[in-house]
Each structure stands twice: as structure tokens, then as C-alpha cells.
């Protein structure tokens, strides 16, 4: 099933290796960049959806407080809120799920082409879409002190994998989550989510560090490249506050966290949106267009809401 993804990936990786002068590390890095670029629309949608969900957290919190004794009504109100803001709560998952086989394909392609074991090399046969690339199989496995088909004996790469994975998790961790977690306001869902995110921030680096310790160091190169490219990508999208994430600037205060996340960085028009406290969830609703079919983040609906609210 994954062959649909793995085979072209193996072919592309070998092609890059051939045209980049047989430099396997450079090939892996360029390959990672290409895959990141190809999956950028998915990443972007996922980010938008996550951001939209973040922005709704204060609203959801208020609903939960308001209907804490009536779960059914709270559920209705939440659904209404999602509709109103044109947010599809499941939309954040879909891009991730689509990306999963791509990530696995990439991973398998690197493992197979390095041919660390006979079974992996055997598994490579019949996968090349361009038979001429057979002449570069298997990839050169020597780089600096490393044998790329074996774990790093000096543990440098595992440490870098842990560090860059942690950094990426830390930089991308929603700041509102931590604030929600700190305020002890009884927003159980937000607290749990924040805790979960925090756990993942430590869990993921350790797991990937374990992979780096156990498997071919070529994979560690991929992990590190992927993390750094990911950080760079999000930085270019303006979604990372380095100073805050690194603790050089104070975190947003509770009031800031309690209002919809300022969207001005991403969408200036969304920043005009009034605080939710000024507009009840069940106040007369502004007119809005038909919800977007895929509805990941309906900026048009938001613009319309913001406009009508401002007028109101």
C-alpha cells in the first residue's frame, strides 16, 4: 500500500544523490526540503485550522462555564460556535493524516537506500522507476565520522535530534495553552489539551532520540534536517515568537490569552474582531455567508462577522 509513496521517493532520493555528486547528506537534506515544500499546502491548512481552534478557546471556555451543568446545551453551543466561525474542528487532523504516509514513505526510502541490512537491500529491488539509477545503489554510507547505515557511535546526532525536536515542539507550542493551563480557571478541556501538548513536547524528543540511538544515522540526519526546516518554515510564516519561546520575553498575560488570539500577525482583518465578551454566543447573530464546504478556516465568514460586529 505504501509502495505508491515509497517507490517514487526512493527514485527521487537516488536521482538527487546522482545529481548532487554522490553526497548522501546533501541528498537527504534537499529531499526533505522538497517534501516539506510539497506538503506545504497541507501544513498551512493544518496551521490555519489549529490557529482557528486556538482562537476559539476563550469562547469555548466561556461556553463551558456558562453551561457547566448542561452538557447537552454546551455541546449545541459549541457546534453553533464552530458553525459561526466557519471552523471545522476535524480539519486540523486531515492534513496530518494525509501527511503520515508521506512521512513514512520518506523514512522508508532513506532506510532502504542506505541498505543497512540484507533484508533492507532486498526490499529495495524492483522499486526504482528509473532502472538506470541502479548504478548508484546502495548510497555511500560514509560521512565525517559516521557510518550512515549504523547508529552514531559518538551520540552526537541523537543529542542533536533530541535538541532540535524539543526546540521545534517548544517553538510551535501554542502559548495560549500554557496560559490556560496556568490560570486554573476550570477549563478542563483546555487544561488537558495544554498538558497533553506539554507532555508531547518532552515525549516526542525522547522517542526520536531513541530512534536516533537505535537506527541508521542517515535517519538522524533526516530528523535533524526535518526539524530545522520545519522551524525555518514556520519562522518564515511568521508563526514563531523566538523571544517568547526561549523565555526572553514575558508570556502573554491572562487577559490576552482569554481573548481570541490576535490574528493580526496572520490576518489583519481578523484582529478587528471584537472580544467575545462583548458579543454573547447567543446574541443575535450577524448575517453570514453559507459555511464554506471544507470550512477549515473561513476567512470570508470572519471578515463578514468582524465587519458587522464593528458596525453593530
Amino acid at each position, binding site marked *: 500500500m505504501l509502495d505508491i509513496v515509497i517507490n517514487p521517493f526512493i527514485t527521487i532520493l537516488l536521482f538527487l544523490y546522482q545529481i548532487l555528486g554522490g553526497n548522501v547528506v546533501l541528498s537527504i537534506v534537499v529531499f526533505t526540503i522538497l517534501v516539506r515544500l510539497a506538503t506545504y499546502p497541507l501544513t498551512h491548512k493544518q496551521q490555519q485550522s489549529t490557529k482557528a*481552534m486556538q482562537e476559539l478557546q476563550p469562547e469555548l471556555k466561556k461556553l463551558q462555564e456558562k453551561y457547566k451543568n448542561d*452538557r*447537552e446545551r454546551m*455541546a*449545541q453551543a*459549541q*457546534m453553533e460556535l464552530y458553525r459561526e466561525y466557519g471552523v471545522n*474542528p476535524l480539519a*486540523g*487532523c486531515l492534513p*496530518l*493524516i494525509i501527511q*503520515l504516509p508521506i*512521512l*513514512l514513505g520518506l*523514512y*522508508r526510502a532513506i*532506510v532502504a537506500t542506505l*541498505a*543497512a*541490512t*540484507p*533484508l*533492507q*537491500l*532486498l*526490499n529495495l*529491488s*524492483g522499486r526504482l522507476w528509473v*532502472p538506470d539509477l*541502479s*548504478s548508484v*545503489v*546502495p548510497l*555511500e*554510507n*560514509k560521512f565525517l*565520522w559516521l*557510518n550512515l*547505515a*549504523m*547508529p*552514531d*557511535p*559518538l*551520540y552526537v546526532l541523537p543529542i542533536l535530534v533530541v535538541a532540535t525536536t524539543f526546540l521545534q515542539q517548544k517553538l510551535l507550542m501554542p502559548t495560549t495553552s500554557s496560559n490556560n493551563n496556568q490560570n486554573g480557571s476550570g477549563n478542563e*478541556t483546555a487544561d*488537558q*489539551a495544554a498538558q*497533553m*501538548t506539554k*507532555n*508531547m513536547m518532552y*515525549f*516526542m524528543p525522547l*522517542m526520536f532520540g531513541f*530512534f536516533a540511538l*537505535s*537506527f541508521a544515522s542517515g535517519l538522524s540526519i533526516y530528523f535533524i534536517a526535518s526539524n530545522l526546516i520545519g522551524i525555518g518554515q514556520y519562522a518564515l510564516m511568521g508563526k514563531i515568537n523566538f523571544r517568547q519561546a526561549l523565555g526572553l520575553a514575558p508570556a502573554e498575560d491572562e487577559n490576552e490569552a482569554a481573548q481570541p488570539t490576535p490574528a493580526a500577525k496572520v490576518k489583519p482583518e481578523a484582529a478587528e474582531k471584537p472580544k467575545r465578551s462583548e458579543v454573547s454566543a447567543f446574541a443575535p447573530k450577524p448575517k453570514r455567508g453559507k459555511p464554506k464546504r471544507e470550512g477549515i478556516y473561513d476567512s470570508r465568514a470572519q471578515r463578514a462577522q468582524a465587519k458587522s460586529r464593528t458596525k453593530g
Partner: protein
Amino acid sequence: MNSLRDFFVSRRLTLGVLVLAALVLVACDGGPGESWPGVTANADTNVIYVANNKSVVALDALSGEKLWAEDYTYEEALFFAVPVGDNGTVFVGDYEGRMHAIDATTGEQQWVYEPERRMIAGPISPDPKDRVIGSVAVSEDAVFFGLGSRNVTAVSRETHEELWTFETDHGVWGEPLYFDKTETAPATLYVVSLDHYLYAIHTESGDQLWKLDLGGAAPGGMTYDEERNWVYVGTFVSEIVAVDLDAHTIVDRVKVSDWVWGRPALQDDILYVGDLGGNLYAIPIVDNRFGEFADIDIADGGIRSTPVLTDGMVIVSSQDKHIYVVNKELDTVEWSEKTKGEALTEMVFVPSGEEGQAGLIVVGTSDNDQKVVAFDYDSREEVWRYD
């Protein structure tokens, strides 16, 4: 709705665990946790030696009775290599770069060579562990073997210490060929590597005598043609290459359909070899060139092992969990028999020694319930199995 909310809460964790679980599964696929059994036979004593996972076992070739077993308690002592018997000793390398010398009669370990690693602090070493994947070549004084990632090592049979290491740019997975010195040439070791080269190495000094670019990775061993002083090598550019060891040149090459891993078998100036596309070839050598070959698309999986030749028949095992018996013209599959696992390892044919009975075909498989199985050549029935 509550479940939907719970989904949001656990979404990150669920997806994270999914990714990690998938990575673990994928990483284990074909990883170091799996091996295929290396099978070889001593024709004089009718003993089969099997190296698999953490054991080396001796079996009676005709009955399958276990004669002895040497189990290793190393953390990772996987065996891929085919054991080699020489003068009462069985040599086999493991997945941590060790070379074991085992008494062929009793199974007792005579000695073990463990590569020295410089330790910087605690477990930190600049020397990564490497694996022995291919089998060994043995001289009177030394044991020669390639390593999975690169290099060839020579170990003294007397001191059990390393004599020299010859550097290659990639792994050496096939069996080296050793030739004693002659009036005109020093004792020489020939190895083929995944780095595309055939190397001739001076066995006393470990220096390179010459090397030759084969055009593609050569994961298997070489077949020696004594009459011509040639070797034949299969490569991953789907070629069989004939190399003249006197002239240090490629004499001829023939293109086949898929990658060639297995060592060709030579009989009556015809090379028999399978490829990873499941094709079997009979390539004649005519006037010191490759002639027009016959082929048959026989298996749904790759043929990795060297074909076994009997009177008039070619026997091959395949990744598609079958062994096939084909006539030498390659136009008729006489019979095939199913194995429980993928049959990737070398096969052994054990003559029965009795009138009217051909013997047994012994093959290793990837299935734990049938690590090694022996089929009667005439009746095609399973005679014994080792699991």
C-alpha cells in the same frame, strides 16, 4: 458530542502515538531484528551447519537430527552468514563483527575474535560496531571476511588477533576467494564490494594488488572458473560480469532483467544464475565470450541463492516461498514445492548415496516453524525440518 470533545483533547497524543507506532513498525521491517538462516554442508561427514539468530547448529544431513547447538547470549548475536567448515573447525561471523571458530564435531567454541573498539568514555566509541554478513575465506593461517558497512578483515588462526584491515568504500557481503601463492603470484584474496569494485588483496600485507570497477554493486560472491582463471560476478546493474584474473580486465558482460545477488553456478561451460525478478538464466560461455542465453520467468519473488545443479536439473529457491526444479534447457519446470517462509538462503543438495535415490534438497526459510527443511528429490516429500 462529548466523544468529539474528547477527540480534540487527545488528538495530539493520538496522532503522535500513531506516528511513533508507525515509525517503530516501519523501522523493524527488515531491520536488524531479522535474519535468514545460513546453511552449508560438509559432504564428507554429511553434516549440515546452520547459523541463525543466536545459534549455530549441526544437523545430520539425512535425518535432520540435531548433533550439537551452540547458543550465544550476546545482546545482538544475529547470524546472516553461511558457516564455513575447514579442517574440523566451523567459522561464522555474527552481527556485531565477531568471528567464531567452533569445533565441528562437538560444537564447542574454540576461539572468538572480537574487533577492538577504542572507548572514549563509558560506552562512547568512535568505532561503530559492524556486521559480518557474508561467509569467510580460510587459508592455513588466517580467516578473511568482509564487513557489512565496509572493509575486509584478516584474523590469525593462531593468535586469533587481527592481522590487517583492508579498506573498501562500502560493504563486503559476499564470500571472498582465497588463492594460495604460486610461482608467479603472491597469495591473493579477491573480494567484491557494494562499492562496485572487485579487489585483489595481498593476503600477507593486506595491501591492494589491483582493483576493477564492475559497474554496479556486487552483493554476492564470485564463482571461480578454474579452466580460464576467471571469476563471474552478478551486480545490481542487472549484469553478469566475467573477469580475467590474469589480465585484471572484464572479459565480457551480459545484461539480464533484474538485479543479480546470487552467485552463479558453473557446469559444463554454462552459468546458471537467478535474479531478483524471479528469472533463471543459463548463459553459455562460447569462445571465451558469453553466448546467447536461455531464460525462464519462474518465480513470483526474487531468486537470491545460488542455483544447485544436479544431473540434468537446476534447483532454485525463491522469495515466493517455493523451490523449483527446472531442466537445464530451462524450458520445463519439472516440479516445485512450497516452503513455509521465504527461501533466500543458499541451498544444499545432499546425495543419498543409495542406488536409485537422488538425495535431499536442504533449504533455509524465513519461517520460524521451518528454519531449515529437507525435501526428498524423488518423492518431493518433506523428510525433516529444523525449527
